[in-house]
């Protein structure tokens, strides 16, 4: 009996350790998930370094982030992500305690408390017309003891109180064609100069009293040559401009209200002129720079407004703003890239010949050129000036240099991810193991004793901390080899800067990064854009020795017919294998389901002229492709015209582009939506690599329903033309939303449903035989989510076993594209509370595990919602059988359970996309959410039914077994003794 109970006990123990974990306990944060915070490419930085207190820097970025960073470590003190259309125009620090931001084209001015980032005030500025936005925070300009901020935006000059954001005075500049270029406030005076161009050949100067906005003087002078581009202020009453040809430099001085021009042809300054120049504005007194093609020329303006070239260089040069270091002295920095090093020079504005500082810093080649530099000074122990420089590199990273060293660096390129794919890690072989074994038995035992204490909740706070750090430091998860469960992978991400990163899923560290040359600005390609990432080679089976590689697709410029660029990168080493500059454009990329003998996947690139190009360009690939020639179909969506077209291949290219791998295409079908009533706003298909476990669905009363599973289904949502705007712009009567299910091979519309009184934006996800979409219901003024499930009726009669046995089924009957598929759809709608940014669905290796929807909400959180809640078979009162099947009673809205937030108490600021990747373990899926922040976690939509959780306490199990064994032997000896006594009696 003891043995029996022991077994039962063991089994019970085993199951009790698998107790349902609905979500996360607070101490499990960081075990399988990681969260990284980024900023984006810095476009302005302002230092805040007082003699006492923390050294900090305020930055604004291209991702509309304003943040305060610690200058010692580069950590974020606070950060705010503004709205996507709330672009930051300028930042500054006022009164030493407020961060002032000007955003939304100069119409919103906000002040943030410097230490904690709390918004202090917000002002809305309006003006008569659109214009350049300029923010100026004069240090010692006061109106009634009130420090002011000067803003020029939307054709109006405003003086705003620093303390509460009140507009103190305003002055309109309504001149028809006046384009204000600069607002200059000479230090120490109460004057403001507003300079600009009017009707392309007039130079206008306004002198304004800063205390009350009164116009003191207005002068204008004509210059027949016209003006081009920006102006650079060189002195407080002198600016430099270019004439309309870009060949003559104009020094415009407006001292005492008299405007005088002085022309200097660039050819007089430099002998070999390289065509039109461009002014690089700088705030350094007496110094400015121009750029002609790749040549940068730094020019000094002497007191008599004479220009002289002080430097001419072929290197890309960045110049910092002026930094006042002492009475009347200004320092500025120049930085250049030369090979593996960057050269930093700090000079005084009036003394070009001497360097205050000259340093060379070794810099990773994959950071590219220096794009921006900001400098700050400190006083060394020997009372001399030291300088620190904050630099922004081509790959959008941010670095702090001090004393010739990189103090810290931030990979802020990761804030703007364009596309993500995954790659397996190398297989663990003998000798390449990097596992760290526990030092000795004692350590191991100690660790397990601690864990045991934790389980029995006897641990002291120190013990808990020790356990937590032990769990987090688990070296297993960041190993560089493939694991049994497939949790360890590489996330390959392509950023907007054209840099490729490989992140380890274990802890998110960067394994390698590579700046793609094909996506860098060059003479051939001025504005390269990264488009997509594809798995090029995924070795398994017979090509195990090859390293996997990815295909990066980019194009040159935003136009649709810009030539494409391909790049192939090895995902183990992070080296570029090869790159191709294409002659054709890339409109669409179709990864084909065929691979060649080296496991290279065939890709079909469709260009803007509707030619198809096959890659790789090998004879083998062509022969595989020709075999499958007639089975390749695709569709294209023209949202502007409201047309969806289906295409197939026709034959080899004819004409001048004749090429072995070029094919002509033909149009098969087209669906034209009535342009006056419907506008395409969303199209979604199934993921190409999705696995469906079973086609049949057994429902409550032993009935079988067959899912209509087709890879060629397309979900299209259209809205009424009026309803394509924002919420609140239409009434429910004049807006509707139509959802279609279209077969992309035949062009047949399988299902169409209209939601009256609804409008976009529509976010949808398609998986197996269902599609879920999110839209706005104007009548209820709430968001709604609908589900459509599509079932195959033609096979519904096959459920009789006898028919199958007797061969009376229709499984072998031919399927024709011309016959209408016999499908039925079921659908249902529910209210959903939040706005949605993106929706994804979990995916697992075999597709057995039930699905969860991953909803990226407007609050930048990711909510996991079980698909069961979006089941069209839900009814208000489900029958007993339906309840047993797991059908939830129908409610009008979808539940939001806080514990099912995948991101728990974190935010993935600026959320843009959610990617799910199956792990090898069927129950588990890997989730990667990216935006300005990155977040990764493992999810088990139906709990981990196929493995023990990390919490499983092996020590407790061992101890229980030992205790039981001891108990067995004890009772055995006792019974022996008793039996002996019995026998003696």
């Amino acid at each position: 009996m003891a043995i029996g109970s022991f077994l039962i006990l063991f089994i019970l123990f085993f199951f009790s350790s698998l107790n349902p974990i609905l979500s996360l306990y607070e101490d499990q944060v960081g075990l399988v998930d990681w969260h990284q915070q980024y900023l984006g490419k810095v476009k302005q930085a302002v230092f805040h370094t007082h003699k006492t207190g923390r050294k900090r820097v305020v930055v604004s970025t291209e991702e509309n982030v304003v943040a305060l960073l610690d200058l010692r470590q580069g950590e974020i003190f606070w950060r705010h992500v503004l709205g996507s259309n709330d672009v930051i125009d300028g930042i500054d620090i006022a009164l030493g305690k407020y961060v002032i931001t000007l955003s939304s084209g100069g119409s919103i001015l906000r002040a943030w408390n410097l230490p904690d980032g709390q918004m202090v005030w917000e002002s809305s500025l309006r003006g008569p017309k659109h214009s350049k936005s300029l923010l100026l925070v004069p240090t010692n300009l006061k109106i009634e003891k009130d420090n002011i901020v000067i803003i020029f935006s939307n054709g109006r000059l405003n003086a705003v109180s620093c303390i509460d954001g009140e507009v103190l005075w305003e002055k309109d500049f309504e001149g028809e064609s006046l384009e204000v270029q600069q607002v200059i406030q000479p230090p120490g005076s109460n004057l403001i100069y507003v300079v600009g161009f009017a009707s392309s050949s007039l130079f206008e100067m306004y002198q304004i009293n800063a205390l009350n906005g009164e116009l003191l003087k207005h002068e204008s002078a004509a210059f027949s040559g016209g003006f081009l581009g920006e102006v650079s202020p060189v002195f407080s009453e002198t600016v430099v401009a270019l004439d309309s040809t870009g060949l003559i430099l104009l020094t415009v001085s407006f001292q005492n209200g008299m405007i005088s021009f002085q022309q200097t042809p660039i050819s007089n300054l430099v002998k070999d002129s390289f065509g039109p120049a461009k002014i690089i504005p700088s705030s350094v007194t007496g110094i400015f720079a121009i750029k002609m093609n790749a040549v940068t020329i730094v020019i000094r303006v002497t007191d008599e407004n004479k220009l002289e070239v002080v430097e001419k260089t072929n290197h890309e040069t960045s110049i910092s703003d002026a930094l006042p270091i002492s009475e009347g002295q200004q320092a500025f920095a120049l930085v250049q890239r030369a090979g593996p090093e960057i050269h930093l020079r700090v000079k005084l504005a009036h003394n070009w010949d001497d360097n205050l500082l000259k340093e060379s810093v070794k810099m990773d080649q994959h950071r590219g050129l220096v794009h921006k530099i900001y400098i700050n000074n400190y006083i060394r122990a020997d009372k001399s000036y030291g300088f620190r420089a904050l630099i922004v590199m081509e790959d959008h990273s941010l670095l702090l240099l001090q004393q010739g060293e990189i103090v810290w660096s931030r990979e802020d390129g990761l804030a703007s991810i364009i596309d993500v794919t995954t790659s397996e890690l190398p297989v663990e072989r003998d000798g390449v193991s990097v596992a760290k074994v526990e030092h000795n038995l004692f350590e191991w035992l100690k660790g397990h004793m601690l864990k045991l204490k934790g389980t029995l909740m006897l641990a002291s706070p120190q013990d808990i901390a020790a356990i937590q750090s032990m769990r987090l430091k688990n070296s297993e998860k960041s190993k560089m080899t493939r694991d049994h469960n497939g949790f360890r992978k590489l996330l390959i991400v392509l950023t907007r800067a054209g840099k490729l990163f490989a992140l380890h899923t274990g802890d998110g560290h960067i394994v390698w990064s590579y700046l793609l040359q094909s996506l860098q600005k060059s003479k051939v390609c001025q504005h390269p854009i990264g488009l997509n990432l594809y798995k090029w080679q995924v070795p398994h089976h017979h090509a195990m020795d090859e390293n996997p590689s990815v295909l990066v697709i980019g194009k040159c410029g935003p136009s649709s017919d810009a030539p494409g660029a391909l790049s192939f990168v090895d995902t183990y080493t992070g080296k570029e294998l090869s790159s191709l500059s294409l002659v054709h454009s890339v409109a669409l990329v179709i990864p084909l389901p065929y691979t060649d003998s080296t496991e290279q996947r065939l890709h079909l690139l469709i260009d803007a002229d509707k030619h198809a190009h096959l890659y790789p360009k090998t004879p083998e690939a062509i022969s595989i492709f020709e075999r499958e020639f007639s089975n390749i179909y695709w569709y294209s969506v023209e949202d502007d015209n409201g047309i969806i077209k289906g295409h197939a291949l026709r034959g080899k290219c004819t004409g001048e582009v004749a090429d072995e791998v070029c094919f002509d295409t033909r149009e098969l079908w087209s669906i034209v939506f009535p342009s006056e009533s419907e506008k395409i706003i969303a199209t979604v298909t199934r993921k190409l690599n999705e696995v469906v476990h079973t086609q049949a669905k057994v429902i409550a009363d032993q009935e079988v329903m067959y899912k209509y599973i087709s890879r060629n289904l397309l979900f299209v949502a259209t809205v009424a033309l009026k309803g394509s705007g924002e919420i609140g712009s239409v009434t429910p009567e004049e807006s509707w939303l139509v959802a279609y299910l279209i077969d992309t091979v035949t062009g047949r519309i399988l299902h169409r449903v209209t939601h009256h009184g609804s409008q976009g934006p529509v976010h949808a996800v398609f998986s197996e035989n269902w599609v879920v979409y999110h839209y706005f219901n104007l009548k209820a003024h709430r968001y709604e989510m609908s589900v459509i499930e599509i079932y195959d009726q033609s096979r519904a009669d096959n459920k009789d076993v006898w028919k199958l046995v007797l061969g009376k089924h229709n499984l072998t009957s031919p399927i024709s594209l011309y016959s209408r598929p016999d499908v039925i759809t079921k659908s249902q709608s529910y209210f959903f509370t939040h706005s949605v940014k993106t929706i994804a669905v979990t995916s697992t290796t075999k597709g057995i595990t039930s699905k969860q929807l991953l909803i990226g909400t407007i609050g930048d959180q990711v909510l996991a919602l079980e698909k069961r809640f979006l089941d069209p078979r839900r009814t208000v009162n489900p029958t007993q059988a339906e309840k047993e099947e797991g059908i939830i009673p129908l409610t009008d809205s979808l539940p939001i359970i806080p514990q099912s937030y995948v991101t728990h108490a974190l935010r993935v600021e600026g959320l843009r996309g959610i990617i799910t990747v199956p792990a090898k373990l069927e129950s588990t899926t890997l989730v990667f959410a990216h935006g300005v922040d990155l977040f990764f976690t493992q999810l088990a939509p139906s709990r981990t039914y196929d493995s023990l959780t990390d919490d499983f306490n092996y020590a407790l199990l061992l101890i229980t077994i030992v205790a039981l064994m001891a108990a067995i032997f004890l009772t055995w000896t006792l019974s022996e003794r008793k039996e002996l006594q019995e026998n003696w009696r």
Partner: protein
Amino acid sequence: MAFSCKNSSKFNGFSGCIKMVMVGTSAIMMQRRTLAMEASLCVKKSKKKGADSVTRPNSQISAAMAAVTPLLLLLLLSSAPSFSSGSRNAYNINGRVKIPQGLGTKGYALPGRMSNVKVLLNGGQNITFLRPDGYFSFHNIPAGTHLIEVSAIGYFFSPVRVDVSARNPGKVQAALTENRKGLSELVLEPLREEQYYEIREPFSIMSLLKSPMGLMVGFMLAVAFLMPKLVENMDPEEMRRAQEEMRSQGVPSLSSLLPGGARN
């Protein structure tokens, strides 16, 4: 990893940085109070000047703020006008987010959390932040029906339907969309607190006993101590018969299974 710290391995850098953030936030808590003081003073000042382009809390509020700054978020009872018309077709929506103190004090009460609250109009078309006193405003909003959402970690806010009418500006028409409750003024309060983590049950004897393990042990103990008692009360004759019966049926006894058990 977000950054690599100088002279430290990546791992150390990471944990170190987390600590730094913690220190930073606790410092912020202290500074918030002083900030509130300043803010209240500004309001007074602006009143004196009579400038009124932006709607602000009235001076009664600022007096309260100056008096009881730490509780400032809670004591504000007077309402602010919710709309002010701007130019011809653009209106301002002003409102307030109020987080009652009863909520959020337990669990992970993050200091400075008011600064992490975002208010979103029409699904992110406009995003604004809260002033220290919880007020927010959207500028240049066209007339129509709009949706305001509040995103605050730790709280569940219902979206609010707001009607901005061109005919009678200044009229408040707001309703929570979750429960269709009308709001007389645009003061948004969380419907409930959100707890993102499961709570670990504290250790207790009862929970241990109730667990399968505990039950099993209890059962075993009961068998071990009660069975002999039962056996004692049995008639020795009957017991012997039962034992013999068991042996004849060949039920494996413990002693025969264990090594050395075969001796008997």
